[in-house]
């Protein structure tokens, strides 16, 4: 399974990639914003994306993916500091499969991935 991790923080990407590798997911690629993410979508089975990023934010990325003829069915988990109800609902409405609020544990990430990939 190929996973694309999108976050403008290199630290957050490193944390997520470490968690994924410890969970046995070794095919992981990274992007620093939505535009970079779109150019790395080929063959991706799961997208993990931050919301607040420069150039193109995560919500815009989700909207772009969901209307793409090629990638519209790729599962997406949003991983963000935006924890207010209104924001969670907006993300879900726009096609996010699941939502993780930072800070999160390795266990939460593993659980959500399992649920989404079922």
């Amino acid at each position: 399974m190929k996973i694309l991790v999108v976050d403008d923080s290199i630290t957050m990407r490193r944390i997520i990639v470490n968690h994924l590798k410890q969970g046995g997911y070794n095919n992981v690629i990274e992007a620093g914003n939505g535009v970079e993410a779109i150019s790395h979508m080929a063959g991706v089975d799961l997208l993990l994306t931050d919301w607040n990023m420069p150039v193109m934010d995560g919500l815009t990325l989700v909207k772009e993916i969901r209307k793409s003829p090629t990638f519209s069915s790729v599962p997406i988990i949003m991983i963000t500091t935006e924890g207010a109800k209104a924001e969670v609902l907006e993300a879900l409405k726009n096609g996010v499969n699941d939502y993780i609020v930072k800070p999160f544990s390795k266990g939460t990430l593993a659980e959500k991935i399992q649920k989404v990939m079922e």
Partner: protein
Amino acid sequence: MEVQYINPFISAMNKTLETMLGILPKRGQPYLKNNKITEGDISGLIGFAEKNIIGSVAISFPQETALFVYEKMTGDKLTTLNRDVQDSIGELANIVAGSAKTILSGKGLSFHISIPTVIVGKNHHISHKAETPIVVIPFHLQDFTFIMEVTMKISKQLSD
């Protein structure tokens, strides 16, 4: 600035470090900041704004604390406050501000948070957004120390 506005930031800091580092920090006695200079070697600053509210939160670390936190988060041992460490302090500030924002939004106080600014250097100056008093909250993280600075100007009361 009242306790009800400070407490969400303390809860956010506790939750963030406990979840990300596996260490619950110990809080010291808060005090009002009385000069412009910050003790830390590296600081992350986030501003927030909305119609009824203006403010900012900063986290400021001595070098040894920042390197310890970085190692705990990523598993990598570094010796200088390089770009990766700067990024980690910015992201940590972002997560703490975001968690506090979530708690406050549940109390009817909504605002947007800015992208983090990271400042590095001895005795640097943190430019907080509001001109209101700055509350400094000292923390212990095992043998290490750091501080959080919060200032907020609110023209609306919280609902409970």
